[in-house]
Structures are given as structure tokens and as C-alpha cells.
């Protein structure tokens, strides 16, 4: 019997709501999940669990632009998200993929293999030092969270972006080598310049799950949201300004 993945398709759900839901499903639900969100209704800057906003963000400019700073529960770097960011999240019990050890690097390697059939037809796709890239240009950031033999891998994909938002991010002290000192606008690229339609990302992800041997069960937000009422460790939060 094929293991089941609950597939939740969203459109325009805010990144804060999405992250809170993901944290609940990872920590307080036993199932496997795939969450696909077509854009965040509100633009925001999202930092990883160790991110220091003063070092990573032009805070005053971000506040003036009305972008909240959100600290998420997973690792990784800082991203600016908006209605043209596509989100894909996989939450998995280690037992559902017994050949993928429940540690960061095996999960990351699995993700490259998982996403290759979706993106490789459109460009020189690879996982470059933990970023999804076409050639030397990043189009997707990802991050992970691991707890009690369950792992979460989530991805933010730049279908399009506003240059003025990207300028709100500072050059991080720890950058991947392939960035080679480039400023952010020279480092990233837009998926819309490579793929003909954003739906290809979502349909491709669902198909990739089927190819990986999972049975897909489409669920709604209300069913998924039941996890938010359970008892679990919550760490996703909006950072106070200043």
C-alpha cells in the first residue's frame, strides 16, 4: 500500500499564516504533507531561526516599506516574499522514505532529485550549495526543520520579484561561494523567464510525489488547520520593530 501525502493547495495565503500552519503540521500532526501556496497576500521579509535582523535587513527601510519581519522555525537564510513568490513544502515521516536518512544533508540531496524533473526541462537546474539555481543564478531558497523522525523541507521560488524589495536585504556575512560577491539582483533570477506558467511548479510537484510512490489525498485548509489547536512548541513569530 502506497504511503499517503496530504496535498494542500493554497492561493494567496500570507506567509505568516503558512509558516504557522507548517509548524503545526510538522510538530502536531502525524501525517505526510505537501503544501503549495501560490503567492503570499502580504509581502514580508522572512528570517531563519538564527537570523539577526540588524545584520541581514535594512530595518528602517523595511519598516518604511511596510514589510514585517518574520522569524521562522526552520534554518537557512533571509528571503523577501510577496504575491509572486511560489511556495512548496514537504513534510515527511522518515519511515515514508526509508532510503532518506532523517538528517539535513540526505534530505537536501533528496530534494534535488525530487525537483529535477520539474525544473530541468527549462534550464540548467541544480542544487548549488543548498540553493535551487539555473546555472549561476538562484531562483529558489530552501530550508529545513527536523524533529522526532519527521522532517520538513520548504522552498520559496522567485516567480517574479520587485527590485526595490530585494534591496532591503543586506549582503550576508556568510554567502555561498558561487555568489562570488555579486549583489542580490545579479545573483538571483526570475522563474518567469524560464517557465511558461506558474502552475507548472505546482502540478509538477504533485506529479513528482506520485512518481515517488505516494498516493495523493487532496485536503482543504480547514482540515489542515485543525493542527493549530493542538499542544506543540511554537516558535514562528513576527519580530518587533526596533
Amino acid at each position: 500500500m502506497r504511503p499517503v501525502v496530504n496535498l494542500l493547495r493554497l492561493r494567496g495565503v500570507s506567509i505568516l499564516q503558512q509558516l504557522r500552519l507548517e509548524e503545526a503540521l510538522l510538530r502536531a500532526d502525524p501525517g505526510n504533507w505537501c503544501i503549495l501556496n501560490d503567492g503570499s497576500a502580504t509581502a514580508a521579509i522572512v528570517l531563519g531561526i538564527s537570523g539577526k535582523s540588524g545584520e541581514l535587513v535594512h530595518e528602517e527601510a523595511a519598516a518604511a516599506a511596510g514589510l514585517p519581519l518574520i522569524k521562522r522555525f526552520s534554518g537557512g537564510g533571509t528571503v523577501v516574499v510577496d504575491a509572486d513568490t511560489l511556495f512548496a513544502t514537504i513534510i515527511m515521516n522518515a519511515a515514508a522514505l526509508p532510503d532518506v536518512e532523517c538528517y539535513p544533508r540526505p534530505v537536501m540531496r533528496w530534494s534535488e532529485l525530487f525537483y529535477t524533473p520539474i525544473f530541468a526541462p527549462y534550464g540548467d537546474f541544480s542544487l548549488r550549495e543548498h540553493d535551487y539555481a539555473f546555472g549561476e543564478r538562484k531562483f529558489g531558497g530552501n530550508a529545513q526543520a527536523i524533529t522526532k523522525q519527521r522532517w520538513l523541507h520548504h522552498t520559496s521560488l522567485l516567480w517574479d520579484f520587485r527590485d526595490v524589495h530585494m534591496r532591503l536585504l543586506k549582503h550576508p556575512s556568510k554567502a555561498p561561494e558561487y555568489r562570488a560577491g555579486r549583489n542580490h539582483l545579479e545573483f538571483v533570477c526570475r522563474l518567469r523567464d524560464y517557465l511558461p506558467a506558474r502552475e507548472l511548479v505546482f502540478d509538477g510537484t504533485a506529479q513528482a510525489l506520485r512518481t515517488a510512490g505516494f498516493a495523493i489525498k487532496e485536503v482543504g485548509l480547514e482540515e489542515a488547520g485543525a493542527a493549530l489547536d493542538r499542544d506543540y512548541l511554537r516558535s514562528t513569530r513576527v519580530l518587533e520593530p526596533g
Partner: protein
Amino acid sequence: MALRKLASQFACTTGLRVGISPALQACRESIWRSFATVSEDRKYAASHEWAKVDGDIATIGISDFAQAELGDIVYVEMPEVGSQMESGAVFGVVESVKAASDVYSPVSGEVVEFNEKLVEEPGSVNKDPFGEGWMVKLRLSDPSQVDSLMDAKAYEQKCASDDH
């Protein structure tokens, strides 16, 4: 730890570096795993945390096996002094390879100290997981819990069976 350093140097000099290829990276990790050290004077949880007891105080950290699997640790989140920890519950988080991984307390007790060195030097967990990489100290609320942890030999066998 000396064996691990030798293995790491071997991996590097034979080109088994991050980014070469997924297959070679997996091979590198397998080599590291084979040389994971186990400290004899500790007890171990199945989730790869260790506890060293001195009187009613348990010092807690993660094992050499765990730090090798996690990769280069860039951040360690630890509980505040005075916090109550339950056996098996999450007491902190370590970040490595863009992943936030929970770490679990092998015993119950009150946090009396955390390793401030890890705030500025989280890589100490990788370099010296049984020494300078310790994470927290608890005043035990139920010392008998220590008896249910694995000794070094049992933990070593568990690590060997986890390596597949």
C-alpha cells in the same frame, strides 16, 4: 576524535568535498560515520544525546555521531537557566545545512547552566562534542532515569546499526 580528523583529511585529499557530487558526499559521510567516537564515561539516548552525571548534576550534549550527521553547526539555541526539562522533550535546537534540528533532553531536571561559549562558537559542538561542545547542565529531578540510558557499548552498537 583523532580518527575522525584523519578521516576528514582523507576525505578532503581524495576530493570527497561538499559539492563534488551527491554520491561522493554520501560516501564522505559514511566514512565519517565509521569513525564516530563514543566516550566511555557517558550514558546515551537513542536520539544521540549524552549525559554525564556528577552528583545530582547532569551535563548534556550531542554525540560525535550526531554532530557528524548534522554537519557544520552554525547556531545553537539553549534553554534559559531555571527552565524545567522533561526526559525526551525538546530542550534546544541546532542549525546546520539550513536545517533547524531539535535536540532532546535524555533526563528530567532544572537547567542550572548553559554553555555560553556556543553562542559565539557553535562549531565547538563539531570540534569537541564531548568536551567544549557540551550544551546544558541539569539538576536531576529523577536520577533513576540515567539507568535507562544506553552505556557506551550499547550506544556504539546502535550507531553501527544506524549506519546503512
